[in-house]
């Protein structure tokens, strides 16, 4: 069957619910799905944040101190470390007054990719191009 593309769309804020976090961890699991598939088969996800989903993506989060859990910031850095394509809606960042420069980055840890800030039109194109869309 070859490659199957999946667009994960996160529209809920982090920490207020569990599923916005689960979207990230499910997308990251594409790294190990091949142990369940035939040779040559792959799953390629994109992780897309829109609406209130863009909240909680900033640096210097104190999730462990405040909630006793790992931060979304750590998860976003892990996304970069496993070469997961992450897209954040530019218009929604502007709407909430979030500076794109404050988004997490794992470059110092050796990541080859970083989070993309893109227009909503580009995220729609990712959704259109995906075989399956998973909305969280």
């Amino acid at each position: 069957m070859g490659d199957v593309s999946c667009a994960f769309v996160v529209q809920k804020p982090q920490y207020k619910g569990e599923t916005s976090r689960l979207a990230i961890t499910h997308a990251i699991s594409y790294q190990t799905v091949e142990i369940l598939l035939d040779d040559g088969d792959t799953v390629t996800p994109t992780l897309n944040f829109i609406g209130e989903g863009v909240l909680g993506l900033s640096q210097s989060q104190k999730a462990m101190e405040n909630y006793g859990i790992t931060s979304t910031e750590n998860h976003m850095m892990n996304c970069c470390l496993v070469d997961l394509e992450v897209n954040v809606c530019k218009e929604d960042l502007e709407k909430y007054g979030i500076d794109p420069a404050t988004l997490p980055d794992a470059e110092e840890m050796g990541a080859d990719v970083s989070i993309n800030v893109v227009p909503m039109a580009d995220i729609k194109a990712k959704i259109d191009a995906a075989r399956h869309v998973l909305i969280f």
Partner: protein
Amino acid sequence: MGKLTIGCFPGLVGNMSYDFALKLAEAAKDKGHDVDVWFSGNATGSIAAGQKHLKDYSTAEQHLTRLMEKGVKFCTCEACSVARGVKKDSSIEGVIWNAMHWYLGSIHGADRVLQIGGE
């Protein structure tokens, strides 16, 4: 016939989406399709064995058992389950325990995927 993969994230008690997921799974299976259901988040609390059917509360055990007898596959997220105190040796027999990549693996072979988000 095709294959349907359902991602079921809502809890058994507190909303009707869980019920919808199981009814859809049964309808698809009855039509001859293969059906996989992935439990994550609060949905994983529904796989505990020995559920007492108090009439004021929804229960899942009898429905899951019946659907598994029909051939529907249910897999629960191990991390979500143990985080809720649900243990494999006290869960409903026949439910698969695995990690999130099981869901993606099922999606890979699916003709249709329905992601039913939770809380």
